[in-house]
């Protein structure tokens, strides 16, 4: 919301406050000032002067000597190189000491033997264009057309730029402050200043133009209209045009400008229709018929549906309620009589229609936030007063409306003690009454109760906490104490299981050299193709965003590996190599029922493009995680589409597949523009139980006996299966089995490998004997012989 210092001053006397103080005050009461522009900055020493005499410079062909009357006894002499100046012209004259808006400093100087006591300015030098002053961008000095301008007038004042413009963020719950008056009222409350008297007066009479309204739509709680006869269309006065321009609106004609002026000043949208175009002399507020069309002021034809409210005459829509008027019914040169509309529409209705049709206007923006019926009355009064003041037409003494306006506010009564209870500080009773009174809230204290009657325009005030907010807003947050929950119940805090697990895994993953990334939870359906995911795969059962930013961010991911491959690809493109990444985040599984929320799996995903990465190094990280979480993991062949079919496995825990590990399928690498081997794993952490505290085993009392066993087996023999066989055969007395070497080559035959195991045997209750060790050794060897056709090497 843009307001100006002077416009605010129409409603409240700000004389004793600088523009900066006003800005700070706005911020302190919740109206953040996004920008403050002092428009006259740099124009302090630029005045309107008249060129009384013009002569050539005796020593310089290109310079002219101007004798300028600046309304003082003595004229000033200014030299200029511009050629568009002439005797009698009014021009902006920058005097000695001026510091122009474009940064140029003006000093009296000697130019080829003659003194120049300033500079004549172009529009460019004043940093203004034709929108501020028609003719500002002329080549040469800006010529002021208004010959009756008093000489010596400050140029900023002449241009209407002797003002300060604030761009203010108005909070969503305060539609009443989307106006100059609304903001002035808030300032007044903060400064303890009353609003200036602003009663709008006008003369009305019988105008002899029949007119009626018929409101049939509940989305229009209040509709008010008035006829103005014999309008004299023309430009609005300069002061009005200048103000409209300062707040960013284009002056059009006196009628439209008045409606815009009132919109800005009071926040009430108004619309003027050409009375003589309205068939049946009646305005109907109704829902559009499906397929009904309207040609709007922006020259677009909009096709409507039956949820949209229209303003119609006896036949057709003449405007989109609260959004835009119809082109054929707008005020133009030929207009003789007008109907002025001031109405209130429901927020959601305007919002929906505006979104559906894709039109947003100053009016719709205000209706979306809420326009109270009572504001319609003030709006039409103000507009009619301006019409009267500017002698635009004859005002009808009949203002028609569909109902009467509620002028009483709500009553909110609560225990006075609640103020202290919520704030933690006492606000003196007198202060409470004063602050609320300044806001138009009539507050009375009876015993221990505070009773408040709210102004009808303040729809946001609903309960005791709303009143307390108003109190602290104006009493000041700086008056709050800083306490630290001393009066709350002491309780113990703690991490959630999920958070604890995450902390552990982040530490573990970074300790093995992986870097943590945060990637977007949504991705592109194309990624699923790049991952070679089959059309019927569950990974294609994705939650789809109905209004995504783009296709690239349109589905919720069902695996994180894809996102990490994108990150690898980006890094390789930046010549970053030899690294590994991980992310702990959610994947989203579509629920069975479309009414349920999806299952959000907690997933750890890892990818590795380190120079020394291979399947086994990746597996060792998975095993480390298994140890850390107390899980015994096993592996079985995997069918994950984006993994190498022979270098991949499903990770199994407690007979459930909880993830996968492997080399990324070379074809997938190609799809992601990755020209290196990538190893990865992904583990779903959902079902992993919190690790229980384990009681320690007593340390062994008797010595262990260690034996090595190297056996020759066929190349295809799985070492994991051998290990299982060894453990099973060895029984209780086998403490540890470790694979320590695999050998291929002479003297072994092709297709053979020697697998060497370190076996540790121990008894808990006695020293294990050589005989026992030998027996176990033979038993294990025998098992390997039977199962894998192994030969002792």
């Amino acid at each position, binding site marked *: 919301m843009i307001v100006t210092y002077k416009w605010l001053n129409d409603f409240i006397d700000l004389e004793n406050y600088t523009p900066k103080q006003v800005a700070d005050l706005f*911020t*302190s009461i*919740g109206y953040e000032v996004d920008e403050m522009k002092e428009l006259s900055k740099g124009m302090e020493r630029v005045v309107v002067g008249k060129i009384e005499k013009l002569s050539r410079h005796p020593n310089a062909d290109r310079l002219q000597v101007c004798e300028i009357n600046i309304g003082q006894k003595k004229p000033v002499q200014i030299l200029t190189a511009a050629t568009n100046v002439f005797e009698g012209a009014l021009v902006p004259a920058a005097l000695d000491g001026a510091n122009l808006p474009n940064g140029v400093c003006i000093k009296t100087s000697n130019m080829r033997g003659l003194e120049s006591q300033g500079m004549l300015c172009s529009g460019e030098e004043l940093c203004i264009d034709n929108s501020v002053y028609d003719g500002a961008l002329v080549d040469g000095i800006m010529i002021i057309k208004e010959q009756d301008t008093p000489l010596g007038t400050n140029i900023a004042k002449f241009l209407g730029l002797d003002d300060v413009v604030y761009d203010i963020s108005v*909070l969503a*719950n305060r539609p009443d402050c989307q106006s100059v008056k609304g903001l002035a009222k808030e300032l007044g409350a903060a400064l303890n200043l009353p609003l200036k008297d602003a009663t709008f007066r006008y003369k009305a009479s019988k105008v002899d133009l029949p007119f009626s309204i018929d409101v049939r739509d509940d989305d229009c709680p209040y509709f008010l209209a008035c006829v103005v006869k014999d309008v004299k269309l023309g430009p609005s006065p300069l002061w009005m045009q200048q103000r409209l321009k300062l707040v960013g609106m284009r002056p059009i004609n006196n009628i439209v400008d008045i409606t815009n002026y009132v919109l800005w000043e009071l926040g009430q949208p108004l619309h003027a229709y050409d009375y003589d175009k309205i068939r049946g002399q009646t305005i109907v507020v109704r829902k559009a018929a499906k397929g009904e069309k309207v040609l709007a002021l922006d020259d677009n034809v909009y096709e409507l549906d039956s949820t949209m409210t229209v303003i119609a005459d006896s036949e057709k829509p003449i405007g989109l309620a609260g959004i835009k008027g119809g082109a054929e019914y707008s005020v133009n040169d030929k207009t003789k009589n007008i109907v002025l509309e001031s109405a209130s529409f429901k*927020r*959601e209705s305007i919002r929906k229609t505006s*979104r559906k049709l894709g039109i947003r206007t100053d009016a719709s923006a205000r209706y979306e936030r809420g326009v109270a019926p009572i504001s319609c009355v003030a709006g039409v009064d103000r507009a009619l007063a301006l019409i009267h003041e500017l002698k635009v037409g004859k005002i009808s003494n009949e203002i028609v409306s569909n109902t009467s306006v509620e002028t009483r506010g709500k009553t909110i009564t609560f225990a006075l003690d609640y103020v202290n*209870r*919520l*704030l933690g500080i006492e606000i003196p009773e007198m202060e409470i009454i004063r602050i609320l009174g300044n806001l138009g809230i009539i507050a009375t204290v009876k015993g221990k109760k505070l009773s408040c009657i709210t102004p009808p325009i303040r729809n946001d005030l609903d*309960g005791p*906490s709303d009143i307390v*907010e108003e109190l*602290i*807003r104006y009493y000041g*947050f700086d008056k*709050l*104490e*800083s*306490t*630290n*929950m001393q*009066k*709350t*119940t002491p*309780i*113990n*805090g*703690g*991490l*959630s299981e999920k*958070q604890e697990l995450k902390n552990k895994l*982040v530490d573990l*993953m*970074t300790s*093995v*050299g*992986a*870097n*943590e*990334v*945060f990637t*977007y*939870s*949504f991705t592109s359906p194309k990624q699923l193709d790049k991952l070679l995911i089959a059309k019927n795969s569950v990974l294609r059962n994705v939650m*789809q965003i*109905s*209004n*995504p*930013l783009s296709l690239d961010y349109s589905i*919720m991911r069902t695996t994180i590996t894809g996102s990490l491959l994108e990150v690898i690809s*980006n890094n390789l493109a930046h010549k*970053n190599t030899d690294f*590994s990444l991980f992310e702990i985040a*959610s994947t989203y599984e579509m629920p069975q029922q*479309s009414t349920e*929320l*999806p299952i*959000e799996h907690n997933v750890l995903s890892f990818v590795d493009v380190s120079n020394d990465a291979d399947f086994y190094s990746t597996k060792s990280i998975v095993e480390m995680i298994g140890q850390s979480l107390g899980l015994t993991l096993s592996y079985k062949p995997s069918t994950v589409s984006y993994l190498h079919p022979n270098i991949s496995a499903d990770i199994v825990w407690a007979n459930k597949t909880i993830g996968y590990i492997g080399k990324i399928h070379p074809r997938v690498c190609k799809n992601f523009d990755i020209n290196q081997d990538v190893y990865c794993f992904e583990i779903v952490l959902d079902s992993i139980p919190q690790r229980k505290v384990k009681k320690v085993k007593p340390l062994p009392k008797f010595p262990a006996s260690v034996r090595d066993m190297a056996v020759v087996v066929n190349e295809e023999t799985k070492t994991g299966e051998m290990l299982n066989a060894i453990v099973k055969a060895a029984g209780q007395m086998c403490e540890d089995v470790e694979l320590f070497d695999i050998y291929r080559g002479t003297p072994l035959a092709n297709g053979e490998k020697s697998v060497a195991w370190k076996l540790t045997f121990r008894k808990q209750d006695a020293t294990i004997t050589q005989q026992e060790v030998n027996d176990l050794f033979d038993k294990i060897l025998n098992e390997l012989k039977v199962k894998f056709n192994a030969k002792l090497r």
Partner: protein
Amino acid sequence: MQQKIEQIMKEAEKEIVSANNKNSLIQINAKYLGKNGELSGLMRGLKDVSNEEKPKLGAILNEARDRILELVKQKETELEDAELDEKIKTEKVDITMPVKPKKLGAIHPIEQIQRDLINYFVSQGFTVMDGKEIESDYYCFEALNVPKDHPARDAQDTFYFDAERLLRVHTSATQIRTMENKKPPIKMISTGRVYRVDEVDATHSPMFNQFEILVVDENVTLSDLKGVLENLVKHLFGEKTQVRLRPSYFPFTEPSLEADATCVHCGGKGCSVCKQTGFIELLGAGMVHPNVLKNCGIDPNKYVGFAAGLGLERLAMIKYGINDMRDLFDGNIKFLKQFK
């Protein structure tokens, strides 16, 4: 015989002292104490000695044997020490040699900030609660007192799956889930991803991370909130940092406020980081709206509460001087590695 023993001992001592390697010690040992050693010979000769002299000579012989053993042992230790010293002299490293460090991964800056905040609040009795990212309209809006026609519900701000299901726009949804399941006193924090319809640019992202704080108890006030926020800001940016509270509006808190911290770069004097204002916007907060408590089955006449929510990307950007929010999600290794 006694003389003989003394003679042998003298010789033995001399030999042991002059021995210069372990081998000669072994030989010396054998020469005197071995099977055919000189002392062993005398030992065997004891049987020919008279019974009177036997105990005395026996004792002398034993003493001599022990003495030799001891001397040998002593010399052995001496020789070992000398040997070790010699070896140590030859073992050298170049301590300035550049090496490739063991790989250490970096924890993402957002994670680091999350952890820091979690530790800070857990130590003050707060419990971490997990939330859902895909939420229902009820938890994300309705229960939080966000009216049906509130602009936040618009498809221009919120990603929807259908009329009911959406990507949460704030972690405040977790407040509701917490209060539904847990009765006061409540001190909870929650952190995670939230989503808003924003194009990706240097200061916007359709996905970002929030941190939520909620306290509900019989005696908790806006002054408590002020104190908690002031301490938090000092924890984050240092003791000298000041907090400015500004009135604001959120449907789920009343009174609502926004907290600004004095700019960490200029200390409040005004610079390009704070756009000359001296302050940096940090978070939104307020007293829990009575309707929100009511929606969760908590009696607003008995309990009050405060809540606050802060954006972690913004915090990370201020703390680490990150200029472009995209850096946080791009995963460029050169960026990430700086957070080791």
